[in-house]
């Protein structure tokens, strides 16, 4: 067992524990903070997979922007932070079965991926970190790769930006 194994196991347990706490916590701010801990755990796993760029983006976007907006929205509310009602309804068992089925389906489909069938084999050598970053950047602007999805996502974000400005804008005539 190497240091990477230890780090992975500790991180995985912490990430899953934090994720579990997100859905069971009664205090919304605590749930949001646990969500951040869970995001951070995912970032650490990205680092272990030598995907430093994804790890940094995970922290910048999910913790730096999304989680902070969630916390901000929760802070602005007053009474909903301590909800005392029951946390499940009568359909909890349906949800549990669906989640279990989804989990098994994911597990099976992952098992069908050839490179994952023999996990004792070391993965093929990755290109040097600088190269992988450059490849990532180029694949976003290469018409044969991800140019169209990338541009579509950009347009979607632009639409969201304009939409939020329209909603927030002063309706008064100048």
């Amino acid at each position, binding site marked *: 067992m190497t240091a990477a194994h230890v780090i992975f196991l500790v991180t995985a347990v912490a990430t899953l524990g934090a994720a579990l706490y997100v859905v069971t916590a009664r205090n919304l701010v605590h749930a949001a903070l646990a969500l951040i801990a869970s995001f951070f755990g995912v970032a650490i796993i990205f680092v272990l997979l030598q995907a430093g760029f994804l*790890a*940094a983006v995970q922290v910048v976007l999910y913790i730096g922007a999304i*989680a902070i907006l969630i916390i901000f929205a929760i802070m602005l509310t007053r009474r909903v932070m301590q909800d005392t009602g029951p946390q499940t309804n009568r359909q909890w068992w349906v949800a549990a079965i669906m989640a279990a089925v989804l989990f098994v389906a994911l597990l099976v489909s992952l098992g069908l991926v050839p490179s994952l069938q023999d996990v004792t084999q070391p993965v093929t050598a990755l290109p040097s970190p600088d190269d992988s970053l450059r490849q990532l950047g180029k694949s976003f602007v290469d018409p044969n790769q991800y140019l169209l999805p990338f541009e579509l996502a950009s347009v979607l974000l632009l639409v969201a930006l304009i939409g939020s400005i329209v909603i927030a804008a002063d309706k008064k005539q100048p």
Partner: protein
Amino acid sequence: MDLSQLFSDPVGFVRDLLVQLLASLGLADSAINVILAAIGVVIIASFCLVLPLFLIWFERRVVARMQDRIGPNRVGPQGALQTIADAIKLLIKEDITPIGADKLVYNAAPILSVIAVISMWAVVPFAVNILGTRLNVGALYIISVGSLGTLAIMMGGWSSNNKYALLGAFRTVAQLVSYEAPLLLSLLVPVILARSMDLGTIIEKQEVWFIVAAPVAALIFFATSVAEVGRTPFDLLEAESEIVAGFHIEYTGMKFGMFFVAEFLHAFTVGALTAVLFLGGWRGPGAEAYPLLGVLYFMFKAFAGYFLVILMRAALPRIRIDHMLDLNWKFLVPVSLAAIVLTLLGDKLIQTAGLESEWLRAGLLFLGNLVLVWVVYWFLSASARRMRAEEEGADDHASPGHDDHGASHEAHAVLPGDAGAHAAPAH
């Protein structure tokens, strides 16, 4: 191993010694790596925690000079040990947790704020081979751990169960999250110029300091970084005259001290990052052969930036909150976007034209920046003229009789539905 390595690669020299020592104890290679990494973390973190002892004294002396005072001068030579006395005072103060505070979040916030700042130093290169680690996404990493500091301030403000603290936290979101946009955008310019996000590579590519090729981006980076620290003129999150002390109002003793240390260290980090990204970092005569000389150059440049931060703090009044947001979204973001486009186009054109000289490239981009400054100035003066004309026009309308007419017209134009709804029950 020879002693000349001690000068050319001091960290490597000590590391080799430690590896031999640990290997002779019969430890596995992976265990040795973990131990060495832990030692590195402890050294950098200790440096970061000891540095504010000096920074706080330095800043108090400089600000005192600017305000025609002497400043701390009793404890130790020139008062240099004053901060240690203050730290002891903070440690023996009563540790109060307000009633109704969220204990866990309340106690975690100051720790997180220090963690966020210290983590930034993991990638800052002190010299060519004296550095924590080389990340290929170093520039992005700095932004990402910086955003954890925002989180710490929000946690502290919310969990204190105090309305002023909460107001401070709200202002934090308004300020820190919006200033992250131009900060990221201006950070892109040196990344484009160096073709890498690795801070080490960015420094190596600065045969000509990037402040020559990108003065606009350097200024925007510096200003937005100061806003990220929450320093005067951007200290709205802890505006004493408005919301008492903002997010850290309830904190006492060393917990307040940790926020304080984080702020001073972050202010120095602004100077250090400006030095790394725009002033050539450790570059200087003889720095490659003798890394310790590079550390000296780097610290000198970082302190120059920090000195500027202190001067701004002592000289400028606090900016109003609407001005702060206007400055960000209507000025800094568009200008930094323009600077990126300018750098991208200019750099590619220069490369295509086959101009190899670094000085030529920097000079041409500098001219481009001058044009950008001129265009921005032209825009600003034009809009200022327009606003002045509007104000004078409004003054003309203020004459009696005319004013009533204009105001009622405006009311009808603004709320026709409302006016009708109010009028209906009266009739």
